[in-house]
């Protein structure tokens, strides 16, 4: 019962956040010159007709706003101005699956390798392996993903030809983009896992587990890791957001035909409906991912005081 109330409350907050984002987007787009809502609209007649049909541009703003909300709630994100006969939904339908694949492979890789690095560091506290992996982690946090990506392309793909340079067609093509995108999140996870693991290892219940005569293996994986991973779950939302925005540059650098690439193109061409639509779509996606993370956290941590979360 508590769980249900908690989920409903989180859902409500997610919807409010979403509504705010949609509204901000609308207001910004109404004010910017050259947008579908502005007076100086596109000269292309076909595009103009699409826009008119979709937004009822001669209605007063509040009517346009309501229509806009209605369209969005029907998951209809409108036409593109720069590419006639293309809707934002078409672009998303083509690009998002690829971006999603890239993002998911990245997050799985980042979590698995980050947690492993973190555990090794914690168990070899102040040892050589600890220093090595934490040095690696600090570098990973410090080097922006687009710089890593450029470096990878130049050295590993162009100079040494270990990997294909660009596009997204085989597992070999995926190695470099995923590596460039995953390094940052992996480093963050590794550091977090290490520090919580070190803290957990000093807890009384770990001492108790040792006093029971359990093997180090069981103590690490059954007693310590579960507790050490809690904070990792809580930052998953932030990491997902980082990876998502990371796909914008990574897809551009590696010429991957995903949504990120279209999005950056639409920014450079000032294709406002696409910018708006993608922002709203990605925000929705992230907000529901955050919601999912919260619910997962509620399930795996039996202690959580569901109704007090966020307030403390």
């Amino acid at each position, binding site marked *: 019962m508590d769980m249900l109330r908690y989920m409903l409350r989180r859902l409500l907050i997610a919807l409010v956040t979403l509504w705010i984002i949609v509204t901000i987007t609308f207001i910004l787009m109404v004010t910017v010159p050259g947008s579908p809502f502005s007076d100086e609209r596109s000269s292309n007649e076909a595009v103009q007709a699409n826009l008119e049909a979709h937004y009822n541009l001669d209605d007063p703003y509040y009517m346009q706003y309501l229509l806009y909300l209605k369209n969005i709630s029907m998951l209809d994100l409108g036409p593109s101005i720069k590419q006639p006969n293309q809707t934002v939904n078409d672009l998303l339908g083509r690009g998002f699956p690829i971006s999603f694949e890239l993002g998911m492979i990245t997050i799985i890789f980042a979590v698995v390798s980050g947690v492993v690095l973190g555990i090794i560091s914690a168990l070899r506290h102040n040892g050589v392996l600890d220093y090595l992996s934490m040095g690696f982690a600090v570098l990973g946090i410090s080097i922006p993903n687009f710089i890593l990506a450029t470096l990878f392309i130049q050295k590993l793909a162009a100079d040494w030809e270990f990997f294909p340079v660009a596009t997204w067609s085989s597992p070999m093509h995926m190695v470099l983009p995923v590596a460039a995108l995953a390094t940052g999140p992996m480093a963050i996870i590794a550091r977090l896992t290490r520090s919580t693991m070190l803290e957990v290892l000093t*807890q009384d219940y770990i001492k*108790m587990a*040792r*006093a*029971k005569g*359990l*093997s180090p293996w069981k103590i690490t994986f059954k007693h310590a890791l*579960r507790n050490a991973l809690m904070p990792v779950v809580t930052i998953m939302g932030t990491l997902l957001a980082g990876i998502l925005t990371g796909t914008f540059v990574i897809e551009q650098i590696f010429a991957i035909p995903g949504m990120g690439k279209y999005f950056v193109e639409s920014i450079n061409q000032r294709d406002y409906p696409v910018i708006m639509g993608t922002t709203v779509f990605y925000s929705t996606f992230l907000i529901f991912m955050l919601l999912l993370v919260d619910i997962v956290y509620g399930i795996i941590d039996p*202690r959580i005081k569901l109704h007090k979360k966020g307030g403390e």
Partner: protein
Amino acid sequence: MEKILDIKDLHVTFTTYGGTVQAVRGVDLYLNKGETLAIVGESGCGKSVTSNAIMRLIPSPPGKISNGTIHFKGQDLTKVSEKKMRSIRGVDISMIFQDPMTALNPTLTIGTQLMEGLRQHKDVSVKEAKQKAIEMMNLVGIPNPEERLKQYPHQFSGGMRQRIVIAIALICEPELLIADEPTTALDVTIQAQILELFAKIQEETGVSIILITHDLGVVAKIADRIAVMYAGKIIETGTKRDIFYRPQHPYTKGLLHSVPRLDEKGKLHPIDGTPPDLFSPPQGCPFAARCPLAMEVCDKVYPIKSERSDTHQVNCWLQDERAKHLLAETASK
């Protein structure tokens, strides 16, 4: 009587950035089968370190058993392998920790935590383990054991958790139970219940108990013998009667005197000063700086052990013939 545990000249040191801390400096202790020995002293005197040393649970580095022997049922625990030690922990020797709120893993059910020791060491089926777990829950007085096995620690009160911790410690039927301040974190009424539980368990299982505490009330209730520890050394040991009725060491006397009494309302008698720095312990008696009867010799030479009786020993220069006049003087005051 058969000695189940015999500690000789135990030294434990911790190497830190600031230098080496000599936490335990030559402790001699023994424990008879079926008896309860209380180790009493202020915080930081080395009593917990001693108990951790018996379990070989001293974090290393920085800690190290630098000298001495711990004989348990004929084998020296300071020499056995870590693997062998694991088969002793939880099976032959168990330990109970101070704070029941932190001693249980918050993410695992009580049942899992109760049964895992048993499943680790004894060849039992899940069903048998569960049966045994329910039996233990009954022994420590937790109602509805079957349902409660599925619950998590946060669903239990502090007193209940300590009962569970005791059940976990006893499930493999150990011969020695080390309880490190088992009642300190509990309410007074719950304390009494837990102490009664200890007495009951000892009666039913015959387990020997080492009780670490700074609370003389607890000691008076369940200890058979008492060892008073100060600055890493045992300064006086004796039966409960010896210590409570015929205390010899000024520190023991101060300790007894500092217990708040109902008939002297509002008056506290703390021992002035603080224990010495164990980075560089004094070469003489460590209590000399705080002792009302300190003599010149106390600063210079560590007191030899005086045997008051078979059970009662004390390390204090006041026991020396040449200091008797001082004792007489203070007694007449």
